């Protein structure tokens, strides 16, 4: 799997790849979602949950993606922190709001499912609580990046926070599980539960793949947008400095200028 970041770390190759990969993933996501939703609605009612079982096809992949996106965020943050790679930071910045969105979707659909099943919109169940804390971590990341004016400092601070969160998430998950066994009583989840029948499992897996490709598509689109925004900023900076002065070359910029000199700092022309 190390070839993928190595190949895409070149901004030129990344832009060329994402140019067709982003719409392709989007089309795949739409097709899979249509198929999965059709199968989901064609599936028979669950003998215990009735019609509400169909919420699962929306809810469970969202919950999976909520953790998966955090892994992507932490991985991109790690790469940006160690290698000071501009594109990895753009990837981390682009992933966080998507992850927050999936987490919120999982929370909302879970609560809508809980109302008929548990008789309450919210139950302090271990899994619900872990997902809620995950959402708070996403919010903290987005808030930290949004409140810093210096983009480079915001990038590194955000990366540190993402890694601190990655170290803490397993502990938080474990502690919430421990807490739930301590305060047993209201939990309705059947631990282990009956194994899922194929009529339910198939649409669930298809929906999971649809969510994955939707995330891939949106992520690429957002990274592309971030790259374009930074290029525009760098171009504006060059224009403001006037012709002939050269100026530091942006590591993410596409137009190589002859006057560029190798900059000792890995900065990418963010205005100080």
């Amino acid at each position, binding site marked *: 799997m190390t070839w993928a970041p190595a190949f895409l770390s070149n901004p030129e190759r990344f832009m060329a790849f994402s140019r067709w990969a982003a719409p392709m993933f989007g089309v795949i996501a739409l097709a899979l979602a249509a198929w999965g939703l059709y199968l989901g609605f064609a599936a028979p009612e669950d003998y215990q949950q009735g019609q509400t079982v169909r919420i699962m096809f929306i809810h469970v992949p969202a919950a999976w993606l909520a953790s998966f996106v955090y892994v992507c965020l932490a991985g991109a943050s790690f790469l940006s922190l160690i290698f000071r790679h501009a594109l990895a930071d753009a990837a981390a910045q682009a992933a966080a709001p998507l992850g927050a969105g999936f987490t919120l979707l999982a929370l909302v659909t879970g609560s809508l499912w809980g109302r008929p099943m548990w008789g309450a919109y919210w139950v302090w169940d271990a899994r619900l609580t872990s997902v809620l*804390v995950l959402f*708070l*971590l996403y*919010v*903290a990341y987005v*808030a*930290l990046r949004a*409140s*810093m*004016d*210096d983009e480079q*400092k915001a990038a*590194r*601070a955000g990366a*540190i*926070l993402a*890694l*601190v*969160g990655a*170290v*803490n998430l397993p*502990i*938080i998950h*474990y*502690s*919430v599980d*421990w*807490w739930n066994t*301590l*305060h047993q009583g209201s939990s309705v989840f059947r631990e282990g539960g009956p194994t899922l029948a194929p009529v339910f499992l198939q649409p669930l897996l298809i929906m999971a793949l649809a969510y994955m490709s939707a995330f891939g598509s949106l992520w690429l689109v957002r990274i592309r947008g971030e790259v374009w925004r930074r290029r525009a900023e760098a171009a504006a900076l060059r224009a403001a400095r006037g012709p002939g002065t050269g100026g530091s070359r942006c590591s993410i910029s596409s137009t190589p200028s002859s006057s560029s000199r190798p900059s000792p700092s890995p900065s990418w022309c963010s205005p100080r």
Partner: protein
Amino acid sequence: MSRLAALLARETALAWGRGGGPLVAVGFYAGVATLLPLAIGPEPERLAAIAPGAAWVALALASLLSLERLFERDYEDGALDLLSLSSAPLELICFIKCLGQWLATGAPLALAAPVAAIALGARPELAPLIFATALLGGVAFAFTGGIGAALSLGARRGGLLTAVIVLPLFVPPVIFGGGALDAFAGGLPWRSGFALLGAYAAMAVALGPLAMAAACRNALS
């Protein structure tokens, strides 16, 4: 060694002296403990059921208060630049800053915690354990909180941001400490929760300074 002792004395004195120090934290703590019965109702049995947990949550909130000043003041007046230039590694300096923070606010809050819990109706037998968990939890709060304080250096509205960053990280210590108290009050084995709280505090002491120093270097760069 003597320089580090001098630094510890400076940090403790600063956290203690300027801006109220422990007085503000304990005052906030007393305020929250007073508001709780007013909001929930004065029935002793209802209050007694939540007293240890409420005292514990108020402790987590009170330890957030003075975090904002942990690095911000030194960052603004340039002392952090000087400290980062000293021969001691920045990780050690962050460790000492958090230790001073804990001595000046965590320890006084730990003394206030049993008083507040008993005032809310907890049984007096709980007092030693509440003191011990508050002392240990204060270490965890100071060292995880320091990460949030260092990360929000140079940000707009740093104080509020620190709280948003730090509160999700406070989940494990709050759970372990509250669980130990709850188990003790219910006559159940409480040592596992206390041991886990100690483990989290030890991890925060070991790893927190690394993240703090990285964040400080980033802010100073």
